């Protein structure tokens, strides 16, 4: 399934008539079956954009359409086809075994028994899910918890998968396994994946395309190769650092400019 964001805008109203434009007229298209990296510094508007794309937040203006479907009219239909993992917010019920949450998802998304079995085998094989499926999340390590969260999001074979910092706080080996898993899912099931992360190696390993967002606007939308070519280096971390820094300087200059004009 492809995703189309058209002029998305979200304004957070703070106290006393102050407002902060978190996302400012953002438009992009993510084609079917692609893994797209969605990156930006903290507070750039990534998460807000993701939350509008998943129908959690209602945009102040603009629209999101998924294979031509809109949240206003086809909410449930979209939800049935979308998987989401928030690295910092688990979907698992804290006090009860992981298996119970997975069974809930099986019934909620009407997963046929054969697909459920097949997926559970796959998750056990690659993620080692069977080792901790009987335990409640409160007894799991962060890496295990993340694997269980991934399993929950993929149990119903979604066509679109949103991964919001899926490798945050995970050790290198587990990270590697999670990445391989994501890659395999994309390859075998042709799942469209949107990945936000602060870990450059996640992007190098998984994404062909990158969207960089800063201060609520898109500042780069293209392939990884082009970006490296433009900057004349293959060090992605360095490139991203430069981009963020340029953004910071620009903001500082415009603030100084405003101050001068004010004086």
């Amino acid at each position, binding site marked *: 399934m492809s995703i189309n964001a058209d002029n998305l805008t979200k304004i*957070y109203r703070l106290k006393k008539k102050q407002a902060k434009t978190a996302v400012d007229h953002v438009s992009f298209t993510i084609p079917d079956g692609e893994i797209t990296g969605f990156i930006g510094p903290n507070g750039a508007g990534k998460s807000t954009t993701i*939350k509008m794309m998943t129908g959690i937040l209602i945009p102040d203006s603009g629209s999101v359409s998924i294979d031509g479907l809109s949240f206003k009219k086809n909410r*449930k239909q979209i939800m049935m086809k979308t998987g989401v993992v*928030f690295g910092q*917010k688990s979907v698992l019920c804290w*006090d*009860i075994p992981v298996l*119970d949450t997975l069974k809930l998802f099986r*019934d909620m998304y009407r997963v046929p028994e054969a697909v459920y079995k097949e997926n559970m085998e796959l998750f056990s094989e690659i993620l080692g899910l069977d080792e901790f499926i009987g335990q*409640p999340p409160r007894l799991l390590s962060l890496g295990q918890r993340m694997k269980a969260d991934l399993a929950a999001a993929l149990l119903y074979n979604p066509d679109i998968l949103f991964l919001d910092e899926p490798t945050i706080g995970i050790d290198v080996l587990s990270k590697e396994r999670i990445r391989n898993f994501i890659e395999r899912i994309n390859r075998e099931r042709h799942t469209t994946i949107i990945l936000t992360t602060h870990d450059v190696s996640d992007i190098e390993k998984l994404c062909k395309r990158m969207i960089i967002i800063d201060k609520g606007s898109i500042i780069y939308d293209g392939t990884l190769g082009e970006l490296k070519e433009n900057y004349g280096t293959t060090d992605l971390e360095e490139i991203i650092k430069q981009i963020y820094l340029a953004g910071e300087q620009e903001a500082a200059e415009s603030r100084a400019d405003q101050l001068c004009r004010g004086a």
Partner: protein
Amino acid sequence: MRKYLDYSWIGIKEHTAYAGAVRANFVSKIVYLYMQFAMWTALFASNAGKDVPMSRDGTLRYVIVATILSAFVECDVIGRINQQIRTGDIANRLIRPMDFRAMVFFRQLGTSAAGLVLYALPLTILIALLYREPLVCSEQLPYGILSVLLAYLIQFLYSLIIGLMAFWLIVTWPLNMLLAAIYKLLSGAWIPAAMFPDLLAKINLFLPFRAIYAIPVSIITTPMSQDSIRSELGVQLLWAVILFGIAELTWHAGRKKLIVQGG
């Protein structure tokens, strides 16, 4: 349907995850019941029942039945919704092909089922052994059960509305503290509503609280005419409809207001 039952099952498992908490809960209910029993017995002994609209036995029947009901009618819906909104965990609920309110309701139903089996039933057996007087008007019991079901619905809707206030207030516990005191008093959970002074009783006629304890407990424990049973059930039905409407409005207005907290 299975997804709803899954939620109820999760509610049961969550409530019983910590055996120590269940035991402590049960003991606290026995202590509370004993306190109520001792207090009312002492009050009637010192006053000889002058100027009191209810008899000693009628009052004891009332407080016993009210305490048993509270073991499964009371819910932590307010706190749970509140926490989900405050921490942003609600995001994980809003991306599901299932209504948020249905999720909360069926999970609560599970918690109540656990409360019924773990607290209400043993308390009833204990009382049957220790208190030899007749407790209920058996011919009114079918109406009483119907009334308890309506009371449960009203209690849930009321909690849902207050919980959803967090869309605006983010933290609702101060509001909840204030309302909890009013709720406990006016619902008749502590003191039979029939003992209220005139003014309070009149105010209470226009509030939903007495529909939660005063009405069902009176129908179960006090002989009443068919007409007054019917009109009391009508009052409950009316409140259920009104609160359902308010809950709908609060939900739809609140969804637009939502800011998902924390990244």
